[in-house]
Structure formats: C-alpha cells, structure tokens
C-alpha cells in the first residue's frame, strides 16, 4: 500500500500552521485517501489503478494548501454565523465586549487627539448653538413659561387702516364683544398696567402692577400659589383695595412670608389687603402685583369704542380652532361696520378693525422675525458642523482603511469593525454633547445679556429634546461618513486597500473628492452666513445713522408716576413740575430741562381734533395727529428747531389763552399753502377747549427709525392740560449719565420726598433700544458667522494637510529637481483656493437667494449689495488662504531625501 502520509506531506504546503495542526491535517487527509484507495481495490481495480483513482481526489494541491486551514470567510455563511453567535451570547459577554469596544475606541481616539478635539468641539458648538436658539424660540414663541397652552390665548388690538394707526390696546366695547362670544372664547379679560409706590421706609419703591378684571388669571390658566383670586364684587370702584403679589415681589419684599396673606400694605398711600400670591411659574416680565381693574359699570358700554386704553386677552374655547377664532374676530369687526349709528360710520370711514394675534407672539413683538432669521443662521452652522464632522470621519476612516483591511484579513468580522467605528462615533457624540451642554448654558447667558429689553426677565431653559435632536443629526452625519469606508473595506476590496501605498490610490482619490465637495459646501455656507450678517449689520448701521430730527446726545431721562389720588389738583401737578424743573435748572452742568409725555421712543399717544370753521366730509376721517404734552423748554432740551411762531412759556397757564404748537407735517397736511399760526383747533374730547396754534416745529421721528409714518404732531403745554400723572423728566447736561441721574433723582426728591424716579436712561439708549432686536440679531449672527467660518477653515485646513501628506513623495521629487519653496507653496495653495473659489461662487448664489428672501428685513440696503458681497468674498479668501498656508508651509520644508523614503 502506498504511504499516503508521505504522499500528502510531499504535496501539501502549509506555510502558516503549527506543527501539530499540520500533522493532524496530513493524517486526516492521508486516512481519507487510504479509504478511497481501499474502496477502489474492493471494487476490483488493480493496486496501480486504485492508487491512481485515489490520487484523482486531490488534483490541485496548491488550492488545497491555500485553503487549509482556511482563513475566515466573508460570505453569507459567515454573517449568518455571526448572528447565531450573537444569539448565543449572554448579557455578560455583551457588556464585556462593550467595555472592550469602549476601551479600544478611547485608546484610538486618544492616539489621534487632534482629530478627536476638533470633532468634539465642532459637534459641541453646532449642537450647543442650535440648542440655544431653539430653546429661546421655544421659551419665547412656542411655549412661554408659565402659560398653560399659550398658543390658545389671543391678544387683541385695533387698527385704523386709513389713519395708519395701530393700537395694541382696545376699548371696553371690544372687551364686551369678545366676552360675549361665549361660543368661541372660554374666558376674556381686560387689564392695564399701573405704577404703585410701595412705602415702607423713607424711600418709596416703585412697583409695576397690572389692574385686571377677575377672569384675567382664568385666561392664562393659572391659580394662586397661596390665597385666592379677585371676586367679581372686588372689581368695582372703591372696594378694589385688594392685591395679589407676584412670586418675585413676595420673596423680595416679604421674604416669602406666608402670613402676609390678609395683611394690609400701603400702595400709593392707600391701604391694600394682600389676598393671594401667584406661583413662580406665572412670571410676567416686570409685573410685581395685580389689583382689580375696577372700572365703573358705566364704562362698559358700546359708546366707549375708539377709546383704546386696555389690554384684552381671551382664551379660545376647547374644540374651536385658531382659524375659527380669527374668523370670529373678523365677524366682530363686520358687526361694528354694519352699525347704522355714528360708531359704524366712524369705523367704516377710518378703516377700523379689531386685530388679534397669539399672545406669545404679542409678547415677543418685533423679536419674532429676527429669531427666525437666527434659527436659519444657526441651522447653517449645524450644517457646516455636520459637513466638518463628516469630512473628519471620512478622512479618519479612509486613513484607517488599510488597518481595517488587514484586521479583516486577520479575522476581525465586518460586524466587529462596524461596531468599533460606531463606538468611536458615539464617544465623539458623547463628548460633543458635554461640550454642547456647556455651550448651551453659556450661550443662553450670552443671549440674555445681549437681548433687547423685551427679552429681559424671561427665563430660557435648555430644551433637552432639541439638544437630543440636533445631536442625532450631527452624530448621524459622522456615523454615515465614518461607516462608508468601513463598509467599502468589507466589500471584497481588501487586497486593493492592502496594496495601496502612500500614493494616490483610487480610494484616497475618491475620499479626497468627497472631502473637497464637503469643504466647498462648508465655505459656501459660511459665505452665506457672512453675507447675511453683513447685510443686517449694514441695515443696522444705516438705521442708527438715521436723522431723528432731534439731538438725543447728552439728554438723560427718567420716569415719574405721581399717585393720582394725591395729585388730582392741576395746581398741585403744576407745582410739582415747576419745582422739579427749577431745581434742575439750578444744578451746575444742567443746560436745560423739561417734562413731557410721551417722549420720543417711549410710548405714543394720538388723538383726533376738529379745525375751526371746517366740517369734515362724510367718508373722510377726522383730522388726526400724535399728541404730546410738554413743558416750555421741551424743544430747547431736545434741540427741535422752531420753524415759525413761538414755543411755550411759563406764562401759558390755565388762566391764559389755550395754545398749541404743531409740527410741519401736521401743518402741511391740514393747512396746505396756508399759514396755520393763529388758526384754532379743538381735541375731540368733551372737556376740550379751542386752542390757538402759536408755533410750528420741525417733524421728528417718534417711535421707529426704520419706518416713520410721517404722522403730524400737536403739542400742548403741560400747565394748560390736566394730564396723565405719569411723565418723563428730561435734562440736557454736560455731567455724564451717572451724575445726570443723580441730578434728576435729587430734583424729584426735593419736589416731593414721597415720589420716586424710575427707568433712568439716556435718551440715546432709548432711541437705540428701538433697534435692539436688530442689534441683538446682528450680534448673534456675527457670532454664528464667525463660528461657521472657523469651522469651514478647519475643514479646509484638514483637507490641505491631507493633500500635503499625500503628495509628500511628489513634492520631495519636485524639490530634488529644483522647485523653489514659493513654487511648492503655490502648488498647494492653488489646490485649496480652487475649492475656495468654488465655494465662493456657490455661496454667492446662495447668498443672493437668501438676501432676496430677507429683503423685507433690510433697511436701505439692496439685497444684492456689491460692497457686502465683495468684502465677504475677500474675508472668506483670506481665511481660506490662512487655512491653506499653514499646511502648505509644511510642504515647503519637505526634505527630498526624507520624502522619497516616506510612505
């Protein structure tokens, strides 16, 4: 019998088996060949024929040598096997392998610290930034804190289309309309803000209160934390001496003492009984307390229409949609228009209608559109961050292709490799989340610090859902791009990857192309962000440069609210004004001082008037103008030029002829080609007298820098007008704001030690406040644009560094052949600038589209503003150049000898 062992040993070439394994294999195969030989003999073949027959069983020894022992395969069999194995794996094994994966991933991440830091920071800033803005939008617009179903609450106003007048307040007549619409609104309430001086010590403290009807709290769906709400009985004049305190005021003034309930406190020198405390969740900006509105029953009449001075809110009844509620509001307007009496005619003539908007939006006011612009901007930042992380993961994964392929060949399963890549992505995501939490927290603080007045006092909480959502997006991008190469490695291209050396292979070229596309997109997005910021910044600076018509510089202002019960007498009011102004005039450094209500950029008032000898035509609205009540030196203090006639003097008192000053716009509107001086007008209130026009002043901007309605103004002298007891004190000084504030405070105290002054601010600040939302948006956009550009620069830097590394060999040869440093530099920089140029072109197109969409938000800037676009392109180019030059300089330092060895 042939020696089958010898035969097998001669033919089988096992290069990588242990001697024991080899012996086993040889013995096994030999035994099988022997079986075949013996069987052939049994079938009657000759020994020679049987030997030949047995040898036919193995014809390709090389093939057999290669497959025994086999390397682990990758077919269906194998992955199916893995599933079996997983099913058999116990939870302990699973945790064990998880810990192993995490440890391994941590080690790898630590090994490439630069990559890890950049990825974590990029992701963290992207997620954090988005969380800040979305949280702000959520707290402001979608889900304001302390409101139950805020988006079921409507805030009402009226509009006079033909007079170009919008009011966010209404008259009791509208309140009746809404309150009686029981089928649409479950609760309706009316209120108005009021000032209360709370006296405990020598220094009265001013508290901001809201006088409201009892249903006010029902509309907002809140209950008191302690005590009770107002009863209908208490909402009547003279019995309304009850007060509900805000949580903050309760803490601050009474140290959170619960026994304050039923205690009597002194407000405006009147006793009020504390009946309730609202919980901390119902915070309404600066409101410290609530008292009953207590209008006399006679005030609730349809005849009160067109006398708007109350806030009106209502809660939409469950089951009624917002659209139905809005339709009902239109119906209410329709009803008034169809009235055959005077109200109906006035409503029709003036284009009057009731308006309603969601309560949260009414609070956010002009912040709404900037917030959505910011949301877009921060979304761009997230896109850039995603592209960056994707590029980084791609670079890293491709850099590891060879490692993956080798490990695959050595028996690591596809699942194992994917799992490890996933573990790394998740670790980076986790790091990103931690950074995001800090970023979000700090970001919200920055946001509130930059925020305009109407955002202050609103609490913004980090929205975990948003954070999780953005994290998933960011990590998703990383995982997808991180896995692509890992999967490619698995798809039978192992050898190609193993063979691929340091030079450009197809895989590296493909990944470089993909990364270049990503970086180009990043640059484009960053450019859009910068252009957007530029357009908004130019709009802002145009706005701030708008000529208001008065000189706000050097004017300090403060508000005074005299308690009406103590200052009912006009003489007493006048004495207070004169005392304050005289005192101020005697303070060195005070140039001029005045009082007035309302002053520019702080509130507004308007009124209809009649012109003597002129009857208005049916269908024509009555003459209308802005209304101001001022002291004699008002124009001098604000440096508003007098065009004709005279200004008021201290001699214009209740005992002299009633006078009025108008501005040029009112003059041109109602006395075209005539001299208004000497003409008489009368306000359309029952007590008003005829007043003679004695002067014409220049028109000024009153409320808005962007769009002044151009509506004319009539000014009345303070000593002839029994007026509201809340007014502003203005002082033009050379003292600087701190000393000017002291001066005003001092003057008020001298006039009446029981009165306080509040909201001491320079007039300049008040004017700038009107563009506060814009400035806020521009500042945040600038932050986002800088962040976006920085990320794009990192992306570009990464790609160029990679290019340099890939081309080290080639560059070395070039240097060896005599290329100079500057030529090498140019070579590398050109490659980066090609991407930059593509990004700039793409971004410019995007920016044009964006600017068109935002054109309504721009002020005196065209959506295609060549200067902004050009400047942006220059900025982007410089940043890109910097990002290229650093790695390119490395290329110029390449030593040809090293480079040729480099792989």
């Amino acid at each position, binding site marked *: 019998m042939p020696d089958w062992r010898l035969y097998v040993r001669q033919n089988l070439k096992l290069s990588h088996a242990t001697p024991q394994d080899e012996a086993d294999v040889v013995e096994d*195969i030999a035994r099988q060949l022997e*079986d075949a030989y013996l069987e052939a003999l049994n079938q009657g073949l000759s020994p020679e024929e049987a030997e030949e027959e047995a040898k036919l069983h193995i014809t390709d020894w090389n093939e057999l040598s290669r497959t025994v022992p086999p390397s682990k395969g990758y077919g269906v*069999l*194998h992955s199916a096997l893995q599933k079996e194995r997983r099913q058999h794996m116990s939870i302990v094994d699973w945790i064990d392998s998880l810990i192993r994966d995490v440890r391994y991933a941590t080690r790898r991440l630590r090994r490439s610290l630069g990559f890890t830091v950049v990825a974590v920071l990029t992701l963290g800033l992207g997620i954090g930034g988005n969380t800040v803005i979305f949280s702000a939008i959520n707290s402001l617009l979608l889900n304001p804190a302390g409101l139950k179903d805020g988006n079921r609450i409507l805030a009402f106003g009226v509009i006079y289309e033909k007079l170009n007048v919008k009011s966010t307040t209404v008259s009791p007549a509208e309140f009746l309309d809404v309150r009686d619409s029981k089928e649409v609104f479950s609760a309706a309430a009316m209120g108005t803000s009021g000032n209360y001086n709370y006296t405990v010590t020598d220094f009265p403290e001013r508290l901001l209160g809201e006088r409201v009807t009892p249903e006010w709290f029902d509309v907002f769906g809140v209950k008191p934390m302690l005590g009770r709400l107002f009863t209908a009985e208490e909402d009547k004049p003279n019995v309304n001496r009850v007060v509900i305190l805000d949580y903050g005021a309760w803490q601050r003034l009474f140290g959170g003492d619960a026994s304050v309930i039923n205690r009597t406190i002194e407000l405006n020198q009147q006793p009020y009984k504390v009946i309730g405390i609202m919980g901390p969740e119902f915070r309404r900006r600066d409101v410290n307390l609530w008292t009953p509105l207590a209008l006399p029953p006679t005030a609730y009449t349809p005849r009160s229409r067109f006398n708007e001075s109350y806030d009106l809110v209502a809660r939409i009844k469950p089951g009624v949609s917002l659209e139905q509620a809005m339709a009902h509001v239109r119906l209410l307007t329709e009803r008034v228009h169809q009235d055959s009496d005077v109200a109906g005619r006035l409503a029709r003539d003036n284009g009057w209608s009731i308006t309603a908007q969601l309560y949260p939006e009414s609070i956010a006011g002009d912040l709404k559109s900037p917030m959505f612009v910011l949301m877009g901007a921060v979304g761009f930042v997230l896109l850039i961050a995603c592209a960056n992380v994707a590029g980084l993961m791609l670079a890293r994964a491709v850099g590891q292709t060879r490692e993956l392929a080798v490990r695959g060949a050595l028996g690591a399963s596809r699942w194992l490799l994917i799992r490890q890549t996933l573990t790394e992505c998740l670790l980076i995501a986790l790091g990103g989340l931690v950074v995001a939490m800090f970023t979000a927290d700090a970001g919200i603080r920055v946001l509130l610090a930059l925020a305009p007045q109407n955002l202050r006092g609103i609490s913004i909480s980090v929205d975990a859902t948003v954070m999780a959502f953005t994290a998933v997006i960011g990590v998703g991008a990383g995982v997808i791009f991180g896995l692509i190469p890992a999967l490619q490695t698995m798809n039978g291209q192992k050898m190609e990857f193993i063979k691929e050396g340091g030079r450009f292979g197809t895989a590296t070229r493909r990944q470089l192309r993909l990364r270049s596309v990503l970086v180009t997109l990043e640059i484009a997005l960053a450019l859009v962000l910068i252009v957007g910021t530029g357009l908004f910044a130019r709009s802002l600076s145009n706005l701030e440069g708008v000529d208001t018509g008065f000189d706000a510089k050097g004017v300090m202002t403060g508000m005074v609210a005299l308690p009406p019960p103590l200052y009912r007498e006009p003489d007493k009011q006048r004495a207070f004004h004169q005392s304050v102004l005289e005192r101020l005039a005697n303070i060195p450094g005070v140039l001029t001082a005045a009082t007035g209500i309302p002053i520019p950029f702080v509130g507004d008032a308007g009124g209809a008037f009649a012109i003597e000898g002129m009857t208005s035509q049916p269908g024509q609205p009555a003459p209308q103008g802005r209304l101001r009540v001022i002291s004699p030196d008002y124009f001098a203090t604000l440096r508003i030029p007098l065009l004709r006639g005279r200004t008021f003097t201290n001699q214009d008192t209740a005992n002299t002829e009633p006078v009025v000053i108008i501005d040029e716009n009112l003059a041109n509107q109602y006395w075209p080609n005539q001299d208004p001086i000497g003409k008489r007008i009368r306000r359309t209130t029952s007590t008003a007298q005829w007043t003679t026009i004695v002067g014409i002043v220049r028109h000024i901007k009153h409320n808005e820098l962007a769009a002044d309605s151009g509506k004319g103004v009539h000014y009345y002298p303070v000593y002839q007008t029994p007026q509201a007891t809340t007014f502003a004190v203005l002082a033009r000084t050379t003292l600087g704001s701190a000393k000017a504030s002291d001066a005003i405070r001092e003057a008020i105290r001298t006039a009446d030690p029981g009165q306080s002054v509040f909201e001491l601010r320079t007039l300049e600040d008040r004017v700038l406040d009107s563009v506060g939302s814009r400035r806020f948006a521009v500042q945040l956009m600038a932050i986002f644009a800088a962040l976006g550009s920085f990320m794009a620069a990192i992306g570009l830097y990464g790609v160029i560094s990679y290019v340099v590394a890939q081309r080290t060999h080639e560059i070395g040869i070039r240097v060896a052949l005599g290329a100079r440093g500057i030529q090498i530099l140019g070579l590398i920089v050109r490659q980066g600038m090609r991407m930059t140029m593509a990004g700039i072109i793409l971004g410019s197109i995007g920016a044009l589209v964006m600017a068109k969409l935002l054109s309504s938000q721009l002020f005196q800037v065209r959506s295609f503003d060549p200067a902004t676009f050009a400047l942006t392109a220059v900025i982007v180019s410089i940043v890109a150049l910097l990002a290229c030059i650093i790695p390119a300089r490395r290329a110029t330092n390449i030593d040809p000898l090293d480079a040729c060895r480099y792989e």
Partner: protein
Amino acid sequence: MFNRELKKGSPELLVLALLEEEDRHGYEIGKLIETRSAGRLQFRIGSLYPVLCRLEEKELIKGRWVEHGGGPRRRYYHLTALGRAFLKRERDTWAAYVAAVNQIIGGHHA
C-alpha cells in the same frame, strides 16, 4: 433576497445535514453525498476537505480522533449546537430559495 453566496454555501449545508444524523468521518461524508444523490453530486476529497476545515473553524462541527482497533485513527466530525441551529435556519432559507426558483421556472415544489 437570496445572496449569491448561497450556492457557494451549499456544500456546507450538505455536510451539516449528513452530520445531523450521526457523527461521520470525512471520506464517509463524501461517499454519502455521492450515493444519496445517485452520483449526481460528487465531492472529491480535495474539495470537501476545505469545507470541513471551514466548518470546524466556525465551530459548527467538531472533529475528534477515533481509534479503530489498532488501525490508523480516523477523524470523526460531530455537529455542534451552534451548527444545529445554523443548519435549521439555512435549511429554511434553502427551501425558500428552491421554492422561489421553482415558482419562476415552473417546476414542482421540492
């Protein structure tokens, strides 16, 4: 639905199926495939042996040496629990595959 690797996987399936009945040695497995398929399927030692190695490597089967009354040892293969579970699933997949092919080419259900 069917991986193109399926056909490559079929020798494995055959081996596993034969080992399901009892432990067998290598040559016996090749012989059984031939006889049970009435000679239509033939696996020479050279092609079957790598399959056995592969299956053993994956712990679907387990080989052990068995002494035979003084004669040289034979290596017998035994189906592991893992192999049994795997066989069950692959058998279902195979049946589904055959059924699908038959559906298309109009043959009888296997």
